[in-house]
């Protein structure tokens, strides 16, 4: 610990990523204990609430399936509204997880280790929430299921239209979900083994069999680590272009159309930046809560939070730049429909949505120019919430305001959400949080073996851990 303390003094710029007198065993203990101890009452209360919100989601979807899409506010011309808005919103949230676990990994960003596990979990849950919308926005999900995937159909002999960006979506989103899940599970294996062995040591039969099974008999043998590390590297390598492709393809849903306000070549980078932006905001929200709730301050340090704030500042500014470009190009194109579409965004019936978006996404992150605010937890918490609001509005603005007034004024309309719209969206948060709560309760929310891997090795601090455990 001596050199740890020393290092702290020596290196105020790059403080260590693990604070306090922690050694390997200490880390194991800190992370594993979360699940091993008795379940706190607060947890039951929390999951009780979130589960009932999930119940609302279920009811709303049932109501939708029985009555049809008409229970939402969608209409002609606004064929897509909250459904696709929420889909893009949730998919976007997911991206930060993959980004942290994959891209930062490839860039050897050590600070990712203590947040990547939770971030990946968040990705999975966000994708789960997102997947609900494209499926249910048809009103008859069973049709979507058995006609959107290219099964052979001997009765009809019909196939899908693979030119449709929605078809690309089907592949992109399902691939994204699958790969993220694999990535996440592979990362979990060594920690599951750790939990297994601890369970055996405290001879907790149930846990030892559960984790014994889940960890597939992992032994951490040097030979295994060799393949494992390569596999992990490859998955990271695959996930990186994948995560970029997913939101690019989502943006194609709009970019390849001929609707003014949708038909824009800037969309792919713009969407990806937005996704990362919103994703980090969500990670921030969750991390601030869990490090406080599970007191992991020494593992999720200010440095982690500050880095994430810096990324939000960067991506937020990129998004702001995108808004400006859109406006300018619309003006510069000289195309009356383009010009109107963007004028209508800022000053049409939905002006409030547009300006909410701008202020939350462009103005709010600017506070992170100041180190003081970057390090102020309440500030960053509120900021992260605002950013998520703003990013939801970005999607709403792109979808609804472009649709409600397009080419022929005779067909113009206005979209108003119904309670069902709102409760469905609200419900997805229930699902998301329920899954996340279950995760933090039962699985190691911090990658134990990876954190150990980034600790400075040395005989010294193994000293006071006993041989005998």
């Amino acid at each position, binding site marked *: 610990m001596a050199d740890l303390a020393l290092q702290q003094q020596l290196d105020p710029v790059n403080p260590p990523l693990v604070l306090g007198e922690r050694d390997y065993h200490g880390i194991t203990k800190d992370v594993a204990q979360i699940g091993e101890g008795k379940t706190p009452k607060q947890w039951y209360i929390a999951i009780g609430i979130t589960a009932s919100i999930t119940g609302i989601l279920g009811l709303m979807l049932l109501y939708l399936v029985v*009555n*049809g*899409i*008409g229970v939402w*506010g*969608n*209409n*002609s*011309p*606004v*064929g*897509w509204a909250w459904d696709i808005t929420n889909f893009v919103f949730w998919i976007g949230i997911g991206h930060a997880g993959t980004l942290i676990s994959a891209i930062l990994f490839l860039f050897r960003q050590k600070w990712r280790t203590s947040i990547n596990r939770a971030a990946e979990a968040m990705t999975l849950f966000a994708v789960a929430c997102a997947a609900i919308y*494209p499926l249910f*926005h*048809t*009103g*008859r999900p*069973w*049709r*979507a299921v*058995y*006609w*959107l995937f290219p099964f052979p159909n001997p*009765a009809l002999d*019909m*196939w*899908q*239209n693979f*030119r*449709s*960006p*929605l*078809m690309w979506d*089907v592949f992109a989103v399902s691939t994204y979900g699958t790969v993220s899940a694999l990535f996440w599970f592979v990362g979990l294996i060594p920690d599951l083994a750790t939990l297994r062995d601890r369970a055996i040591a405290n001879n907790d039969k149930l846990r030892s069999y559960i984790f014994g099974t889940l960890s597939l008999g992992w032994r951490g043998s040097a030979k295994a680590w060799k393949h494992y590390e390569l596999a992990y590297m490859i998955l990271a390598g695959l996930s990186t272009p994948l995560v970029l492709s997913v939101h690019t393809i989502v943006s194609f*849903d709009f970019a*390849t*159309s*001929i*609707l003014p306000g949708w038909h824009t070549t800037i969309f792919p980078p713009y969407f990806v930046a937005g996704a990362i932006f919103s994703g980090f905001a969500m990670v921030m929200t969750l991390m601030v809560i869990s490090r406080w709730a599970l007191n992991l301050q020494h593992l999720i340090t200010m440095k982690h939070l500050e880095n994430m704030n810096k990324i939000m500042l960067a991506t937020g500014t990129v998004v702001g730049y995108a808004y400006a470009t859109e406006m300018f190009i619309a003006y510069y194109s000289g195309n*009356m*429909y383009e010009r*109107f579409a963007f004028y209508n965004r800022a000053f049409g019936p939905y002006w409030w949505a547009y300006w909410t978006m701008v202020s939350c996404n462009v103005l709010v992150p600017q506070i992170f120019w100041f180190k003081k605010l970057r390090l102020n937890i309440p500030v960053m918490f509120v900021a992260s919430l605002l950013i998520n609001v703003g990013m939801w509005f970005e999607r709403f603005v792109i979808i609804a305001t472009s*649709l409600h*007034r*397009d*080419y*022929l*004024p*005779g*067909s*113009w*309309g*206005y979209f*108003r959400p119904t309670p069902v719209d709102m409760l469905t969206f609200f419900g997805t948060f229930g699902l998301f949080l329920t899954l996340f709560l279950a995760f933090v309760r039962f699985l190691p929310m911090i990658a134990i073996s990876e954190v150990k891997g980034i600790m400075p090795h040395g005989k010294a601090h193994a000293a006071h851990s006993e041989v005998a455990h």
Partner: protein
Amino acid sequence: MSSVDPTLVQLSPNSEPRKYWRSLDELANTPKFRDWLHREFPESASELVDDKSRRTMLKLMAASFGLAGLTACRRPEQKILPQSKGIEDYIPGKPQFYATAYTQGGVASGLLVECHDGRPTKIEGNPRHGYSLGSASAFAQASLLNLYDPDRAKYPMKEGVRMKWDDFTVFAQPHFAGLGQGQDLRFLVEPSSSPSLAAVKQHALSKYPGAKWIEYEPLNRDEAIAGAQIAFGQPLEVHHQFEKAEVILSLDFDFLGLDSPTILPVKQFSNARRVESKEDHMSRLYVVEPSYTVTGGMADHRLRSRAADVRTVAAELLKQLGGLTVLNGATTPHGRWIAAAAKDLKAHAGKSLVVAGPRQPAAVHALVALINQQLGNLGQTVTYTKVADGWRPQLEQLKELAADLAAGRVKTLVILGGNPVYTAPTDLALADKFKQVPVSILLSEQDNETAAVVKWALPETHYLETWGDALAADGTPTVQQPMIEPLYEGKSKSELLALLTGYKDKRPYDIVRNQWFASLPGDKEKAWRKALHDGIVESAPKAAPVSATPNAQKVSEAFAALKPAGQGTEVNFFASAGAYDGRFSNNAWMQEAPEPMTKLTWDNAALLSPATAKQLGVESGDLLEIAVGGAKTPMPALIQPGHADNSISISLGYGRTRVGRVGNGVGHNAGAVRTSDAFWFGSGSVAKTGRKYPLSHTQEHFSMEGRPIVREATLEHFHHHPDFAKHAVHVPKLFSLYDEHTYEKGAQWGMVIDLNTCIGCNACVVACQSENNIPVVGKDQVARGREMHWIRLDRYYSNDPNDPQVVTHPMACQQCESAPCEVVCPVAATVHSPEGLNEMAYNRCVGTRYCANNCPYKVRRFNFLEYHKDITEVGKMAHNPDVSVRMRGVMEKCNYCVQRIQEARIAAKADGRRPIRDGEVKTACMQTCPADAIVFGNINDPESRISKLRKQDANYGVLEELNTRPRTTYLAKLRNPNPELA
């Protein structure tokens, strides 16, 4: 779902597989659930067979979805029930067309009705009939739905108790036998031109000389006839030749719209307006009117004027024309306008035409007669014919009846058709008076407000259910053939009258046949058959024009005697484009057909000008209270640009209390403030209630935003730059990244719509709705922007917001060759046919709505809910069996009536495999368009009409610059303004 088997297909009651899934029977057998399941899993309902050895994926799916699904998982046993005895020349599944007659305002229009296996499904105009020429108005077409109205009067009712006809006859025969001279007998009858009814009437009146025969119709042409009475000393019916007229001035006469019972004026007018080459000319139309009508929409010069000020315009015009001066002192601010019009009219003496509307007082009509004489139009563009003897203004007759009722001079009242309690002026208070009558008998199609106050309410047959006849405006006898046996226990007017008065013939068929048979020339049987086939009795003499000269002296006296326009806000009463006078109140098609100008559905409203609105401090959606004399009625305000100031217009036929599930409580009753001395208009007052009232429009934005959508120019400009429309927007050389698909082989379908002749009358909308089983969605869904019409008439205002010009833009699927909708459909539910149709396979659609989003014309319609679920069994009889009924979650849109194309192709192939001839396929909209503004055909055939139209300079495609390559193109809109007023 699928096609209806011609030989009646029924689900046999024992089709439930009780032998297995017994435990689930409860759930499984709730019919609602089963219907739903059949809707949602048509495959599972059909593909699967009754065989335990085979379980199918769909079965599992249905099972997993809802256990009860399993019942749907065997083939429901369907029965085929052929006739026991064959029917001569009837081929199951082949539609048959019969001629018949639709009567409105006592004037007949000839119809051709399409029947599928004995049920009328589509109404079209009879090409052989001089007043239809193949077209039918929206009302005539929608009358089909009245036949299948589930809330019709079905059985004889005595004070609300269901009876048998026998009960009635048992009561009636002795009663009428005991009426003696019939001193206290009154007949209140919906006016009719039916000769056969007239014959029975003669018989009745000869049997009861003391009885009185009163005719009343809430929207009548009495003022015009009375005007002739003044001018010519005899009551005459006026006829106009809009086709011959080069300059037309209309004084508050919506002759293209609701003021004409037939569509002939539209045909004539559009012929005079059609411009096909740059040499062509078109007539010029001046309109003076308070509210904005479709006629005003077509005007080259429109003068908005209170109805009461129209007379001064007329008088000033006569003065300008050098006729006598009847304007004592009164002046008009529109001198210049009138002067210019007068000059124009004079310049076209003999080829011009001045017309006045039925809402204008008799004196104005008389004055107009003078004007036309001054212009030498009498006998040229205006002719007069005699009306039936003993004509008296209906209002007069009705007042007299009211007086008799009040005095208790009426013991027996027979009401044949109509709904006087609802339609009569309020000050007559007929409802209470009717209650006092010892014996009151109503024969009516509707179970209406009048039925509520009479002793006996008898069901009347719909005109498609019984024999009858009527005269066209020129006296052409038009035969009304039944298409179907009476659905309920209805009887026709003449049938009942015959029953009551013991007429020689009892059956409607005999009454009608014997009316004509004797007079038929040559082989009478053959002639009769021909008459039935053609729908008209050609041999019968037409009404001869009366040549008479108007008496200026009488006219000026009458004019002077006109009661002056009152103070306060003027209240105008109009027929409504939806419910007409209330007879279409329970007709869902008409309720949902948007009002041509305001695009208002499921309501009427008080239309007022922006200025008046500002002055009163009201805005659209405010609930007003309108008072005329003592009477009051609530009415929502709706600002109508181009409306006359200090004047409001409200339409009749709404606020029904007893008509049926569709019409009850829809809108507000304008009739509540319609009094006998403010019958057409009068001065009243308007007050705000402070409450709001939601109005549902199908269009919310009326400005074209300077976009080149409807391309318009003056005739003059067109003569110099015939291709102006092509240059309204720069269309660069368009190319595709791909080597493009070409459509050269076989027929290539396309459509051209002439914006210059389209008047926006809704006929096509209703035709499309009827032909393609388009659901009605109701006020709430319309408010949410979910109306389903495949063709919509976009209405755009231009120029001065207070006094704008309007254009109509019919918009349906443009069948783009490179269709943006097709590319984005993930399941290939919408693809292109080799003949260039943008096809929509409903059963493939999963409902992502992406295609609709990507359609720049926004012509795709989505079934957001199960819009067909509330249709009654009898309502389903109106469905066209050649077109699928779409379920919820499915996208739909115009497909150029592909079912008609297919029928034509199969016919052509059976007929020696020849190609389809030009004009052999007509889309429903083209077929019925009164202005012949829609032309559909094969653009691959250089000789076809459409190819020629597409070659015209004025031809252009909307949003061509997007490279969508629309197959539907438009001919630019032209106006022919008077240079002096430019």
